């Protein structure tokens, strides 16, 4: 089962036999549980038009039915990287975990709920421990409420609704696990955020029972009006950049455009590497046993052949670990920041929109001399609004950048580490084989008559 909340230091390892939600975690007996459908498949198919990647291998069979093993062991260090945030762990008073996906079948639909456990010492919470069940829709609701309340704060990304590309069965084990981890991260990022952590809807999300949440959701502006807000924001930015945009935000915009580009390419590269590693693994699986087969018809060199076979098999396993490391750490983080780049572009647009409201009111005032007082009051309010928005974004931006730097540093360092371990393991294997061979060899005779 999941580690309990975020603790300072490495979380306790899950009991032997399972990674975090590696196989489907134990469902309480008797719970209504449908067999999860679909064969495991790759989460993300790559585009064929990878223009910015040099394609080197001709027989890229993208439509393989890959047998992706979900039961990968998770090392303590990768767990730390997954849950590490830049805020001091000792100051945390809110610990959240997301686990235990369960499938529910009704007449209309089938959906998955996740268990959300909250442990807190905060006074405003009536209890110190909560356990609720939430479905993806609920997370979407929370995100939109947060965006509504704080249009210029950087709300963490949610995993996508579904992956369009490729043949991913919505309820594949791998898909659910990836989503669960991302949802866990989502809530924890909110908990870490100095402002968002005290949001009322957030509290309700964590604590309310299912029926309470439903009725609360019905209040407040409907979905359409929320969509309207973002649509208007986008529209206003389409009409042309904001004239009086402070330099700082133009810089941010430029930065985000480039960052977004780069992070997307990095995401593609990392996926491509994973794919190539898997192809390599598949070939290696066949390569080792041939040597064993050969050894059966030889006498003198049978041991050497078997030795090589065993080395290749060990390197094969090391490759599997290497792949697992990639998929545990680098891939999710890069993907998260791909989503973040979209979010940030949206935040910048919303800020621009708020500013354009002010600007257009000012323009209107300049044109109509009448109702000056009324306008001044409105303008005053809007000016405050703009100042608030700008300050909030500035602060959040700095925080986001720091987090990003930290996340990237740890993700790539971890990847390098991963690869280091891979090569170290392979090196040890081959060196011990070589040692065994040179011990057997008696003095080599004069090699003069051998080419």
């Amino acid at each position: 089962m999941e580690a309990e909340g975020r603790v300072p230091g490495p979380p306790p390892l899950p009991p032997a036999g399972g990674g975090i939600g590696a196989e489907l975690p134990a469902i309480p007996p008797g719970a209504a549980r449908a067999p999860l459908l679909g064969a495991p498949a790759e989460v993300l198919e790559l585009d064929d038009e990878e223009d910015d990647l040099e394609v080197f291998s001709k027989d890229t069979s993208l439509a393989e039915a890959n047998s992706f093993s979900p039961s990968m062991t998770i090392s303590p260090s990768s767990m730390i990287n997954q849950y590490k945030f830049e805020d001091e762990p000792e100051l945390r008073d809110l610990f959240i975990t997301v686990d235990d996906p369960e499938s529910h079948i009704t007449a209309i639909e089938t959906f998955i709920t996740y268990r959300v456990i909250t442990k807190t010492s905060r006074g405003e919470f009536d209890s110190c421990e909560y356990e609720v069940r939430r479905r993806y829709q609920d997370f979407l609701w929370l995100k939109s409420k947060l965006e509504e309340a704080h249009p210029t704060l950087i709300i963490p990304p949610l995993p996508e609704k579904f992956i369009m590309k490729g043949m991913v069965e919505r309820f594949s084990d791998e898909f659910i696990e990836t989503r669960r981890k991302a949802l866990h991260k989502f809530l924890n990022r909110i908990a870490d955020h100095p402002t968002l952590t005290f949001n009322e809807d957030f509290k309700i999300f964590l604590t309310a029972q299912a029926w309470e949440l439903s009725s609360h959701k019905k209040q407040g502006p409907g979905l359409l009006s929320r969509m309207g807000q973002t649509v208007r924001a986008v529209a206003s930015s389409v009409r042309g950049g904001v004239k009086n945009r402070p330099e700082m935000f133009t810089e941010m915009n430029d930065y985000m455009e480039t960052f977004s580009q780069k992070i997307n390419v990095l995401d593609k590269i990392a996926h491509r590497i994973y794919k190539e590693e898997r192809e390599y693994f598949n070939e290696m699986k066949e390569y080792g046993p041939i040597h064993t087969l050969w050894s059966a018809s030889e006498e003198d060199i049978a041991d050497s052949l078997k030795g090589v076979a065993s080395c290749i098999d060990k390197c094969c396993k090391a490759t599997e670990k290497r792949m697992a490391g990639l998929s545990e750490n680098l891939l999710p983080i890069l993907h998260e920041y791909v989503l973040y780049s979209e979010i940030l572009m949206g935040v910048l647009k919303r800020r621009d929109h708020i500013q354009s409201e002010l600007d257009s009111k000012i323009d209107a005032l300049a044109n109509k001399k009448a109702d000056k007082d009324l306008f001044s009051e409105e303008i005053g309010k809007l000016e405050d609004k703009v100042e608030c928005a700008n300050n909030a974004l500035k602060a959040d931006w700095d925080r986001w950048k720091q987090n990003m730097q930290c996340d990237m540093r740890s993700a790539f360092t971890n990847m390098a580490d991963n690869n280091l371990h891979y090569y170290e393991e392979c090196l040890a294997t081959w060196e011990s084989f070589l040692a065994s061979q040179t011990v057997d060899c008696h003095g080599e005779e004069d090699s003069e008559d051998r080419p």
Partner: protein
Amino acid sequence: KRKINFWMKNVSKKMEITVSEAEKRTGRNAMNMQETYTAYLIETRAVESQNEGQCSPVDSLWRRYSEFELLRNYLLVTYPHIVVPPLPEKRADFVWHKLSADNMDPDFVERRRIGLENFLLRVASHPVLCQDKIFYSFLTQEGGWKEMVNETGFQLKADSRLKALNATFRVKNPDKRFTELKHYSDELQSVISHLLRVRARVADRLYGVYKVHGNYGRVFSEWSAIEKEMGDGLQSAGHHMDVYAASIDDILEEEEHYADQLKEYLFYAEALRAVCRKHELMQYDLEMAAQDLTSKKQQCEELATGTMRTFSLKGMTSKLFGQETPEQREAKIKILEEQIQEGEEQLKSKNLEGRDFVKSAWADIERFKEQKNRDLKEALISYAVMQISMCKKGIQVWTNAKECFSKM
């Protein structure tokens, strides 16, 4: 460049042999059509045994692949009891996608040059083959060599394929060791070709893994332009990614030489089978001669005693349609007796030939086995060494990259 000193009994000198160059040529072929081919420069140099330092001038001549083939065919026919070293492949096989299958490709030509040199060295170091005059002329006599080979009439001595196939099916008592050897060579051929095929695919995939990492270099560099604190770390890490991606080229090129070593033994399997076939042919010949002799003896006996032990049409017809005169019978018996004597002598010599063949073939096979075990073990060790080198390079690159990342 590998050199070898070998001792030519009838020439009494030690020689160094290299195939040092390859050159593209154009010429006209037998059908007077223009063709392009590659010629290889064979250099030989006598080395005085007393003064290793003193070197005589280098002799050299050019040969093309087809001449090597002619030499080998001559050796095959002339020394059927010897496991004749194979030539490097005529066309590129077991290529992974970056390698060219084109015969004119410089890398292929280079590897073939090495293979041809290896062939010459193998022949020159063989206790029997190195003494062959045709081989010596191949190395030293530029003009008229082809005619010389053809004058030996070796093509006439060659066994027909059909005859050999027939013998393989019909032979009753081949030496068990040769039957086992045949099975072994079949297995060897099958397993090595399988291994080479998969190795090529593994190489392809490995190439992919390394090269895609090269993309990191470019993107890190572009990304570092917009970062202040992370910029340096990204930039330098990117450089290491480029180094990593580039390193695979040398690694895989080295591996090709390993593949070539295995290929040699793949082709050696065919040479082993050739010796087995020759044995089967001789054995079959022997069995046929013995059978013939037995039937003649029987015929003779029947004629002499007038009895018919076995049914024969001739016997029946002569009984039914008239007896032979005693003189006729006597004549027949005399002829048969002569034939029987001839046959017995022939059988004796065939038997001797067969035993000699088996003895000398088996001696060479033992020599071959030891050579094979040595060479293959060495090849496997060199493969391990290559893997170790690759791992060490990987460790270095990723250690450097890790350091750069941690400074981001």
